[in-house]
């Protein structure tokens, strides 16, 4: 099984969420997701200031194999995007949880974080999908 850090939250559509405090979260796709996709060659990110709704399409990651939508795990406003991915989308493959982050949200409701999966639940979910 791929790397699933214990300090992050997860969605069943394979996004991860890091609580940065002050209502800000960082979002990316999991190591498991990047493994399934293969080498990423293009990432389409939202505009800063865009409104993100839970479960809505917010970004696109394209690998050599396929294009895949990224869904917003939470409601909020996009406050920063990872500009470096425009020239180096492979950072998502090499470092899914650090250099490969996609965007940051200012949450409408920080309580919503509690509804997301923890590492243990996500690991079980990813394994169940593999079978």
């Amino acid at each position, binding site marked *: 099984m791929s790397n699933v850090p214990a300090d992050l939250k997860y969605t069943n559509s394979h996004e991860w969420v890091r609580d940065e405090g002050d209502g800000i979260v960082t979002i990316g796709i999991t190591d498991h997701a990047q493994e399934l996709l*293969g*080498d990423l*060659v293009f990432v*389409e990110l939202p505009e800063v200031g865009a409104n993100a709704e839970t479960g809505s399409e917010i970004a696109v990651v*394209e690998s*050599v*194999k396929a*294009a895949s939508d990224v869904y917003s795990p939470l409601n909020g406003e996009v406050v920063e995007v990872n500009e470096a991915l*425009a020239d180096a989308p492979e950072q998502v*493959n090499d470092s899914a949880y650090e250099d490969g982050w996609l965007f940051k949200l200012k949450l409408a409701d920080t309580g919503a974080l509690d509804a997301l999966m923890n590492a243990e639940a996500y690991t079980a979910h990813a394994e169940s999908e593999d079978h």
Partner: protein
Amino acid sequence: MDQKTILNESHRAMGARMVPFGGWDMPVNYGSQIEEHHAVRQDAGMFDVSHMRVIDLKGSDTTHFLRHLIANDVARLKEPGKALYSCMLNEQGGVIDDLIVYYLDDTWFRMVVNAGTADKDLGWIIGQSSGFNVEVSPRRDLAMIAVQGPNAVAKTLPLLNDEIRDSAGTLKPFHAAWDSSWFIGRTGYTGEDGFEIILPENDAADFWQKLADAGVRPCGLGSRDTLRLEAGMNLYGSDMDEETSPLEAGLKWTIALEPAERDFVGRKALEAKLAEGKLKTFVGLLLEGRGILRDHLPLFDGDKQIGEITSGGFSPTLERSIAYARVDADAPEQFEVEMRGKRLPVRKTKITFVRNGKACIDL
């Protein structure tokens, strides 16, 4: 249950990600498809292509039969070992499969067909062979390894036995050499120099390991696809199929209409289509912006749909997205692709984007 090639365990031991492909359990990559692609363009890579089917055709009517069966003309093959690329057509002029056929002698030809179509092909070939003195033998006892790249020949030759090394070392492109059990063609599907080696299954795992030890990088089907796309080589099932004429898939060069009296399967349908005119053209496309062209995306000139992408993807060599498309003959030099509801500009190019490690188009 997907079939496994004799190298299945070797792939797993080398860290392959396995996927189903044409009824087979095959490696798609061994970590990074892009690094595998670059290894073939810059050094040497190897592919397990044992899922493809070798078919031997033997008998006094073999030449006569193949001149009936396939759209290219084996009478063009004069030198033993010379290879020919051809389509095998149905009576409607659609493509049953594309294949390579090698001329060994006047009573023996060796054909290599695609994995996903192998059983269909074999049924068709046997059906067509009635009345000809020809024996059709699928060689499921043979494995096949493609070694490709500028250093592929140099890295492979020292690993061959003495008997075949000398003849393999002097092979011209599109020619093959063989001994009692091994068969080596200077052919490939990447646009680079190299060999395709047909060998007994029992020799395959050992040879694969020796190639790896010699610095030949294991490569999966993922890089095989981006390499062939850059090299201007069609993929059966994407660029042409039984509903598609080779005349609209960039394969007119493989149709031998001369001599006029050779009556191959599909000839009448092709002649009718040529007489009718209005053929679509098969072109290369370069995406002018960011994003990735994918199979089946529609193409527009203003409001009018003028065609569709047949194969698309990312070119690791050009670091741009490229594709093949079937479009109206009067399509302009530039038009648009529709991708996730958005229109993006594309430019027509030739089909060959990269050959021998070098870009063939201006970006």
